[in-house]
């Protein structure tokens, strides 16, 4: 055994192949403690693996027992977690080697490749492997079963249901609320309103008023267009100058824009607009 590292002796003093729980902990344990202990054992095992990385046969032996353990552990783990255990949930990491977070309150969606999405399979606690990169990290990791799965990995919050349907529901609800907040940002005066129904009321009113404004302005444009046909219409400019026309128009448009901008952005937009329009017609 080559590597002259500090932890080497302490770990190799114990039997390197007997890392099963029953040998280390001779007392009868229940499920929760067993899962916790397996965590500790596996993290210990990772240390040894990283230190013994140079040594082939030991690592091979370790890996075989590792897979045994994790196979058993994986089976037990899904049972534990499906019973909505309140202990900290498993961290899911995709093969891109994201950071792992231990505490369970953040929810994070990691997309694997989208190919596996078609059959709609979402594992409740996304057990992906950490790939090759994770195995050699000397951080505290839990060994996960190897093959990377192509699902959307969603991490559940503490104490919430982890079955497939509720996760899908939650994802859908989050999407909808995201879009609602985007809408709230656009509409003036909607930041203070709480509750989806009221916000939607505001949105509907706003769209209706915008459409009415467009209607009104189009009538005005029509009047201006066809009313005094000699002077201020669009047809006045000779068609040869059409290239220059938009630029002139836009220059004056943007000089007048400043007056209009303030009107649109004020909270009483409706009254201001209507009053402004009435004043202009008279």
């Amino acid at each position: 055994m080559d590597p002259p590292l500090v932890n080497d002796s302490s770990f190799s003093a114990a039997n390197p192949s007997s890392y099963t729980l029953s040998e280390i902990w001779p007392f009868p344990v229940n499920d929760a403690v067993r899962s916790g202990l397996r965590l500790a054992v596996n993290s210990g095992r990772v240390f040894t693996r990283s230190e013994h990385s140079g040594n082939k046969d030991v690592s091979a032996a370790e890996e075989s027992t590792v897979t045994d353990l994790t196979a058993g552990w994986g089976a037990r783990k899904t049972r534990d977690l499906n019973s909505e255990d309140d202990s900290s949930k498993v961290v899911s990491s995709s093969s891109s080697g994201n950071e792992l977070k231990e505490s369970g309150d953040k929810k994070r969606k990691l997309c694997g490749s989208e190919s596996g999405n078609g059959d709609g399979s979402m594992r409740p606690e996304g057990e992906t492997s950490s790939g090759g990169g994770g195995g050699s990290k000397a951080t505290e990791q839990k060994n996960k079963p190897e093959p990377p799965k192509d699902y959307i990995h969603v991490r559940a919050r503490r104490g919430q249901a982890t079955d497939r349907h509720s996760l899908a529901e939650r994802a859908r609800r989050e999407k909808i609320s995201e879009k609602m907040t985007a809408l709230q940002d656009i509409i003036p005066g909607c930041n203070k309103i709480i509750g989806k129904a009221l916000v939607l009321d505001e949105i509907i009113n706003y769209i209706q008023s915008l459409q009415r404004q467009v209607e009104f302005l189009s009538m005005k444009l029509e009047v201006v267009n066809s009313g005094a046909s000699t002077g201020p219409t669009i047809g006045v400019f000779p068609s040869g100058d059409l290239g220059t026309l938009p630029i002139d128009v836009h220059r004056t448009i943007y000089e007048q824009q400043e007056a209009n901008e303030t009107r649109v952005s004020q909270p009483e937009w409706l009254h201001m607009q209507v009053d402004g329009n009435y004043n202009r017609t008279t």
Partner: protein
Amino acid sequence: MASLISDIEPPTSTTTDLVRRKKRSSVSSAASSSTTAGSVSSESHARWRSEKQQRIYSAKLIQALQQVRLNSSAATSSSPTAQKRGKAVREAADRALAVSARGRTLWSRAILANRIKLKFRKQKRPRTRTKIPPMTTVVNSSNRSRKRRVSVLRLNKKNIPDVNRKVRVLGRLVPGCGKQSVPVILEEATDYIQALEMQVRAMNSLVQLLSSYGSAPPPI
């Protein structure tokens, strides 16, 4: 010409400064996080609030208005678009807006598709019906074929929950989103509201310009 264009570029007022700052930050955020869902709204926000877009829209609107004016002066009393004489400007404005949207949104495609369908249907009908006097035929068909089939079923009678019902109402307001799912409707509404705001701004300034041009010639 180039000097005129360069005149337009620098913003002058405080509100446009704010808009520009917001647009810059939102554009940078959109560039950095192009895959997040929030980037959709920020990117569309930048698009519809930019002056360049408004310029494009105003140019198209002016061309459309010229055409409408030519049409209305050419056909005298009983134009083929008898019903539309009152709404010609509004529909031209909506169409110009839809074209400026570059076909990426549902509502813009619905507006343009509706117009094309209408044109085809109008050309077909007077040929097939010969017994009935053509005037009423045309009016009726254009009446009926103008509106897209928005479901007028009373939403109050169903027991769908409150928020969903309001989203359905919203979907009826936005053109082309009558029967879409809730997230689609919300997204289309976002874009549609911004486009409408731009339309109102452009038409306001156009009206002001034209009415001021009538009263006093602009300084050159």
